[in-house]
């Protein structure tokens, strides 16, 4: 039980990851798909931050009285991944805007129907 609760952040990661993935697959609205992708990516950010955590350690800033620091590398890595996530969201949303201008809808099945009738 203690390991189950002790690893709670990893459970949150799994929950967010599967939730985001489900939204991407199940939702027909393109904006909701972008949101789902975002949740999916965010879960990985938490995964990285969690693995850098050292029990009882402080933030990796040198200060008097502290000897134990959290591993800064995963946090630094994930900073880059956050930027990638922002860029993906930007490109994805821009595409949705263009799709909306071209089709007049953001629903996947309606877009599909319009293309079929061409």
């Amino acid at each position: 039980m203690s390991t189950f609760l002790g690893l709670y952040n990893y459970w949150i990661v799994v929950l967010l990851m599967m939730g985001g993935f489900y939204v991407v697959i199940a939702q027909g609205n393109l904006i909701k798909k972008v949101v789902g992708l975002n949740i999916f990516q965010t879960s990985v950010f938490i995964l990285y931050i969690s693995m850098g955590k050292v029990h009882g350690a402080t933030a990796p800033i040198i200060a008097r009285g502290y000897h134990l620091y959290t591993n800064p590398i995963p946090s630094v890595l994930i900073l880059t991944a956050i930027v990638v996530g922002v860029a993906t969201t930007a490109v994805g949303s821009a595409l949705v805007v263009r799709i909306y201008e071209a089709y007049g809808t953001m629903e996947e099945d309606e877009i599909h129907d319009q293309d079929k009738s061409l």
Partner: protein
Amino acid sequence: MTFHNLPALQVVIPLISAPLCFLLRRATPAWLLSVAVSWICLAISVLLLRHVLGVGPISYHMGGWMPPWGIEYRVDLLNAFVLVLVSGIGAVVLPYARRSVLFEVGNRRAYLFYTAFLLCLTGLLGMTTTGDAFNVFVFLEISSLASYILISMGRDRRALTASFQYLVMGTIGGTFILIAIGFMYISTGTLNMADLARRLPEVMQMRTVQVAFAFFTVGIGLKLAMFPLHLWLPNAYTYAPSAATSFLASTSTKVAIYLLLRFAYDVFGMPFSFHAMPFGPILLALSSIAILFASVGAIFQNNIKRMFAYSSVAQIGYITLGIGMATATGLTAGILHLFNHALMKGALFLAIGCIVPRLNSMQLADMAGLGRRMPWTMAAIVIAGFSLVGMPLTVGFISKWYLVMAALQKGWWWLALLILVGSLLALIYVWRVIEAAYLREPNPGRDLTAIREAPLSMLVPTWILVLANIWFGINPHLTVGTAGRAAAMLMGLGS
């Protein structure tokens, strides 16, 4: 001093030129800059390959930080070969792009096309040179984001939905790779690929490492369009501007295959990928299905671009087939076909791009009688198509020959048979194009007399790739030799 910095310059030059291109805002200066950059990149990669062939692998430490702490750029035989391929295709496609982009993207947005193109080139070259696992992810996303933009610039509005579909699947693939890299870091505490290769065997039994391998394979499978994960590819290739299609078809999937090779054989190592995990059988099964299903799918397409997009999925199957055999000959065949397929598909999509501005259609039915109006373009399609089938005197024959040989060495005659059946299926769809262009009379409703041959600025790059198909088909020592040595290196037999 400058030579020492070449591995970094290779990536930095296009990276800096991309925003410059954006600032130029006019089509012609942006085009001139990107052509110059692509030629410089080609020169650098040829120098690197020559150095690696003569002297040995190059290790470059970014910012002077020693690996495994700093980021290492590591050029060995395998990625030097891929670098030459990527920058070579870029150097051929960009001069061609001027007229093609003017027609398909428009003068006003052309500079954006070149900006995205250079960013894509940066990402692909970076993924190939880097020796750091996290750096791979960063460059992968740079190239992917740039290719979503390139695809969305197509004339048809379906280019937008194709690009969005690719964005969703590509991001899932990229994130899977990120998860895999995280798990590798958890179990070894390092991100340097050479260091990972040393430490992963010690923790081979850990579930975390196995999960990392699974995530990586699925993630990279999405990127390289491995069979059930290929759904983004046909639409993306069909609706992207022709110059983008031929660049992406011949480089982006190839770099993903390079990463699969690097991680499966080098970082995780053969004992893990092929003995502890069922990587070989899964790859062989999926590749076989890809060759059959995608080839049959290609036969039933009426849009010529979509036909060759499906054919790409089948051809990627041949490459992964060679990789999955895990023998020196199989691996040589895989690496060889990686290079050769880039030449074929590059030439084919460039030739198709020559037709688009003249005919204003990509339907096979509209191409009836085109062989007489555009003889050089159609001849290019025929030769590159024969190369795809695997006719002797073309590169296709060389790679099929090695694949069949690898299958027979293992005693798998059914696999050799499957390769031949795949070639026959390819002959059928290539024949459909030939029949339409040469044997059929022009449609009564369509007046072809106004159609002229494509301009020289488009024909010359197309024919450079077509002639490369023949040159490396008659004289394969360079490609076979390099692929063979790279395969021996990956198998741990020494180069």
